[in-house]
């Protein structure tokens, strides 16, 4: 019997608390280190701490915030900033769309999913895709909400606390802090893959991500995602059909 079908004797509160405990996991700690770096970056850029905490809670995704801060610093028109942030955030749609069928039950109300979707960003997504299979289906939304809300709240407070306190790290430390994020994402996606198509998408996405960053830096992530993902899906489907025909 797997977590999918096992009867669940625990309450929603129990699964919310189990999700909260995810704060003491490797991905959460790596994300917090990234937010320490973000706080140092915004302090150096002289963005008031209240605005930094506000955007941490309301935007949440770190790449989107880096682009937003860049727009604020360059004095970009609000429409230009909106366009830049929107383009960087299209990836949220397939990420959320892939997560929803894993966590909802037939009775989960849509408004609840709309609320918890706010807490989706790369780290929470990778963590959730890895761990929801260990949670009975009826507890998954509570589990994700517990993790996402705690992680967001703690990072809002963290940014407020360390803002200004961190002036400058030694270069090796800040270099390693930055590098933690990509290597953590790589290892975590690999171990959490439950479908063969994930390995293909990871490999092709890395290669095309590099290629498009060189030839079309404005739309690199989008192009690599849509073209690379479709290619990975097509290749894996061909393989599956070949195996079925054998």
């Amino acid at each position: 019997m797997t977590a999918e079908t096992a009867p669940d004797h625990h309450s929603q509160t129990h699964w919310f608390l189990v999700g909260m405990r995810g704060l003491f996991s490797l991905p959460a700690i790596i994300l917090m280190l990234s937010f320490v770096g973000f706080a140092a970056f915004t302090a150096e850029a002289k963005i008031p701490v209240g605005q930094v905490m506000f955007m941490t809670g309301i935007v949440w995704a770190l790449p989107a915030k880096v682009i937003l801060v860049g727009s604020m610093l360059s004095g970009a028109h609000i429409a230009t900033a909106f366009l830049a942030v929107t383009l960087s955030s299209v990836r949220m749609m397939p990420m959320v769309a892939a997560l929803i069928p894993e966590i909802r039950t037939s009775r989960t109300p849509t408004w609840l999913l709309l609320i918890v979707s706010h807490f989706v960003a790369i780290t929470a997504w990778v963590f959730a895709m890895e761990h929801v299979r260990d949670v009975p289906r009826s507890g998954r939304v509570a589990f994700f909400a517990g993790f996402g809300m705690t992680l967001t709240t703690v990072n809002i407070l963290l940014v407020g606390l360390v803002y200004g306190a961190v002036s400058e790290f030694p270069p090796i430390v800040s270099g390693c802090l930055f590098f933690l994020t990509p290597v953590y994402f790589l290892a975590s996606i690999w171990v959490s893959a439950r479908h063969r198509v994930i390995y293909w998408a990871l490999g092709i996405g890395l290669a095309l991500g590099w290629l498009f960053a060189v030839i079309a830096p404005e739309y690199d992530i989008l192009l690599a995602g849509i073209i690379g993902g479709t290619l990975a899906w097509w290749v894996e489907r061909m393989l599956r059909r070949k195996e079925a025909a054998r």
Partner: protein
Amino acid sequence: MSFDGPWPYIYIAIAGWLATDFWRWSGVIAGNRIDEKSEVLNWVRAVATALVAAVIAKLIVYPTGVLEASPLWLRLGAVAVGAAAFFAVGRRPVIGIGTSIATLALGLHMLGF
């Protein structure tokens, strides 16, 4: 822009919050219509993973801050050594990540960072 008054908060809410949550909400609407065992979900999974992979590639190839001045071969080498350790010990993320970061730190140190 000036960072005084309510305007920066309005700016963050429109250009930051609406610009990101619009896509999350679209994902909920789309995800609600996808059957868990359908081929469409397979494609959505592949696209979502490839998008994240592209973000990873960009962080490695075009880092910001201190690493901008580091050579590409060092960053790729750190990923390769970390990957080798990760597979050698039976896919343990902590080992892979630790080895990769240690390799990077050693390389940066030897290059005089």
